[in-house]
């Protein structure tokens, strides 16, 4: 009763949750190109897309992806052997437990005529699979501990905790069951006729199976034991293997023996059973809302990439975000991740930015503060493609970043070079006139630029000056140096020349006075960003 009601509730939550997430694949949008399609358009196009793929040669490449990337996880093994072992252990260990143990009545019994959960090899295998999962979980924990670059959020911890508690409660439960005299009594009353003397059987089970009985039982009486053994063979052996093969639960059982009576009196095994089963159902209900959802979304995403049709592209962007397992490989490989150390804005890191962008894609109002942070992180991204290349879930991150940048711009959050360009250098200088900032040993050190003789070699070799049609630059490099020499740093900071510099270093290499023009520009940009950031709201 309890079992079936709680199962049905969690199953219902699972089904509804999954449906909700799938509908959101077509409802949420990120990127300006997504704005022109309705949800119905996208569902239609998605369904057509699926059919088109199934009935085309593409199906073969999909089967290939299915085998290589989904079943064998080739993408992960290429990146990191340990991660592959971890993932394989958790996934396949758990799956085998699910099929063999959780669905024993439906699957295992149908396959093996004389199946009993306490019989080998099943008892042994259950422990083995559990141990495999625990091993995987341990690798996962260690990996997160050992790689400081990877951030761990509440979802990650909870997922790991849930898996761990399901496994541990399973092991302990089995241990408790081994020593349980109440269960022994229940079994006896169901399988042995009431008139038989069960003292020999008790002695045998107390010795060999470590059942803890209240009354004192002589387990050294050879005669009693041999009687018990024959009774055991007659009545129990067909369903019970020796407990030692449950190589993890057995040691638990042995160590519980000392306070076995208390445990048995309180029927702790039953309480633990509730805990174990509820943990599993909790996992089921939580799945659509957790990182475990990737079990569904990641294979689908791997199969969908690369979507060609515009509407499907928009849809697969959202599926892609759901396929993220927050494994952190993108962040490990991110070429601007170091900036996080300075700004502490997690939205610089792809693995963290993704969650924020998910928030954006819902179309709900996001706080200004938060949007500012997302924008800062997004515009620091150089679209270098490294994250996309390493993502084991095959998420087209590069496309996602471009799309989210567009969405941000459309909502009025600009790249620094754009918001800086919205005011003239003199307006900026006026705005920050009274603001103090930390002196830099480049732009605040006259020794660095006082040698400029205004020869204009820098302007003459500058490709930006050459390519400009007069609008892209306001000053030439040597004029910027002159502003610095006159102490007009704030004015130099917002100059178009500084912001359109491609940092090719031609000026610096050709400067006859060895002035670090490019480095100075770069520093001016960084300083301008910090100096103007706080006042930019008024733009």
């Amino acid at each position, binding site marked *: 009763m309890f079992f079936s009601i709680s199962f049905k509730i969690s199953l219902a939550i699972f089904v509804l949750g999954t449906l909700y997430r799938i509908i959101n694949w077509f409802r949420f949008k990120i990127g300006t190109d997504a704005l022109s399609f309705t949800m119905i358009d996208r569902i239609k196009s998605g369904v057509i897309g699926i059919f088109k793929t199934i009935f085309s040669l593409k199906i073969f490449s999909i089967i290939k992806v299915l085998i290589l990337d989904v079943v064998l996880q080739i993408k992960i093994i290429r990146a990191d052997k340990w991660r592959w072992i971890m993932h394989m252990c958790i996934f396949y260990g758990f799956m085998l437990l699910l099929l063999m143990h959780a669905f024993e009545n439906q699957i295992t019994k149908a396959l093996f005529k004389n199946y009993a959960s306490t019989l080998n090899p099943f008892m042994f295998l259950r422990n083995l699979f559990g141990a495999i999962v625990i091993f995987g979980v341990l690798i996962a924990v260690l990996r997160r501990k050992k790689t400081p670059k990877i951030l761990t959020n509440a979802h990650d911890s909870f997922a790991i905790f849930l898996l761990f508690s399901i496994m541990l409660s399973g092991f302990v439960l089995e241990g408790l069951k081994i020593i349980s005299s109440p269960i022994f009594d229940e079994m006896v009353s169901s399988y042995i006729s009431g008139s038989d003397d069960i003292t020999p059987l008790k002695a045998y089970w107390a010795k060999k199976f470590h059942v803890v009985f209240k009354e004192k039982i002589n387990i050294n009486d050879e005669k009693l034991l041999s009687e018990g053994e024959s009774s055991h063979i007659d009545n129990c052996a067909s369903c019970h293997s020796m407990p030692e093969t449950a190589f993890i639960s057995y040691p638990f059982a042995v160590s519980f023996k000392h306070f076995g009576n208390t445990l048995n009196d309180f029927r702790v095994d039953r309480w633990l059973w509730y805990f174990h089963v509820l943990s599993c159902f909790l996992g089921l209900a939580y799945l659509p809302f957790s990182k475990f959802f990737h079990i569904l979304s990641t294979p689908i995403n791997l199969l969908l990439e690369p979507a060609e049709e515009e509407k499907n592209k928009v849809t697969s962007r959202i599926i892609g975000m759901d396929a993220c397992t927050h494994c952190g490989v993108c962040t490990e490989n991110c070429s601007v991740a170091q900036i996080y150390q300075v700004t502490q804005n997690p939205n610089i890191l792809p693995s963290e930015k993704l969650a924020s962008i998910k928030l954006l894609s819902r179309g709900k109002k996001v706080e200004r503060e938060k949007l500012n942070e997302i924008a800062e992180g997004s515009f620091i991204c150089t679209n270098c493609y490294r994250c996309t290349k390493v993502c084991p879930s095959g998420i087209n991150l590069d496309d996602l970043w471009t799309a989210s940048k567009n969405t941000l711009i459309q909502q009025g959050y600009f790249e620094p070079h754009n918001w800086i360009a919205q005011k003239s250098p003199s307006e900026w200088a006026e705005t920050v006139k009274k603001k103090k900032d930390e002196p830099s040993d480049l732009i605040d050190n006259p020794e660095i630029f006082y040698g400029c003789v205004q020869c*204009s070699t820098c302007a*003459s070799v500058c490709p930006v000056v050459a390519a400009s049609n*007069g609008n892209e630059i306001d000053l030439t490099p040597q004029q910027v140096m002159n502003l610095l020499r006159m102490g007009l740093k704030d004015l130099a900071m917002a100059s178009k020349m500084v912001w359109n510099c491609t940092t090719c*270093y031609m000026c610096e290499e050709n400067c*006859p*006075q060895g002035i670090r023009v490019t480095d100075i520009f770069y520093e001016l940009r960084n300083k301008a960003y910090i100096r103007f950031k706080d006042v930019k709201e008024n733009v």
Partner: protein
Amino acid sequence: MSRIELKCDLLVIGSGIAGMAASLFAANRGIKTIQIGKTNTLSFTSGLMDVLAVHPIEEKRLWKNPWDAIDTLKKDISGHPYSKVSKDTIEKAFKELVAFLKSADVPYANYQNKNVNIITPIGTLKPTFFVPESMLNGVSALEEKKPCLIIDFYNLKGFSALQIKETLKDKWQNLRTAQIKFLDSSKEQFAEQMAYDLEKPKNLDKLAKEISPHIKDAEILGIPAILGVKRHSSVLSKLQELLGVKVFEIPTIIPSVPGIRLKKAFEDKLQDIGVQSFYSQEVIQVFHKDDFVFDVTGAASMFKIRTKGVILSTGRFFGGGLSADREKITETIFNLEIYGPFLRKVWHELDFFAPRGHNINNCGIETDEYFHPIDKSGKVIFNNLYAVGSILAHNDWTRMKCGTGVSVATAYSAVNAFLNQKG
């Protein structure tokens, strides 16, 4: 940290005209040569090659014939670098240099073995000796006072045809001027960028169309020196063809294209003849036993060079070979002894335009007849170290108009001295 160590027979430090010439002469003589130069000063020169035009500077006496001038100079200033070289050496050095430049498609020429007058961007005349061929037409045109059109460009700073006409009005009445809009005239123009633009035939055609209507009776056209960098000769001849008149270039203010042509020619072609060159690299430290070992640093690297001999051609203050602080003047790599005004207050005259120049313009390194730097007592400091070019004392090259000549001739002598000494 162990660094790569490169080995060579001769290390040339400096990539001004002296360093370039020294590298050329050394490579031509089969010497294994490495050249290190910080930023290149060549794009700063006007591209004109002086031998000697003014002496004595107090009298501002102009010489039509530099070779006669040198004879007089040798008698008057015993320390001048020219007093250590023969006229024959100077001529041979230039011959070798000009041949190299011709092979690099930067032809230079001289007119009747005499100093020639070149029009400057402000219309004054500058006496010099070897000039880019593209400027030679102007020399004869000025002498013959041919009807001439001089153009300038809208938004190209530091070059005014009107000013040239005004300054030259007594010497050349037959001058007309016009201002032309260059391709994209809305922005400030830079000679180097214009020169690259004109290497595209389409742009040259466009420019010729703009100029054509202004030619009228002119027999020759004077144009700022923007006619191509690496394809200069063909740009020049194509423009003459398109316009149907002769064309001559007038140097612009720095950085001027003729200087950049020299720079590119050396940078590209010296490698071809075997010089291992490192530009934008700086020699920062030296150790000496028998060989010299130098630490070299640059944007991305740090390495050592071991060499049997060194030619020091690091120039004066602008090049970085000498440095002056509030107290004294020092030589920047070897800390060699400097000849020159000791006290700061006598470095300069009170009058900026003082006819005899300023003491500081004569300071530098003193050498023996083989260009080995010497100390106060006249002793050679290292017998495998040579100093050449403007770092040498006793030559006020800006006023005497002898910059390139001194650089090239001393480089030539030093390389030969090194070769003889090596045996």
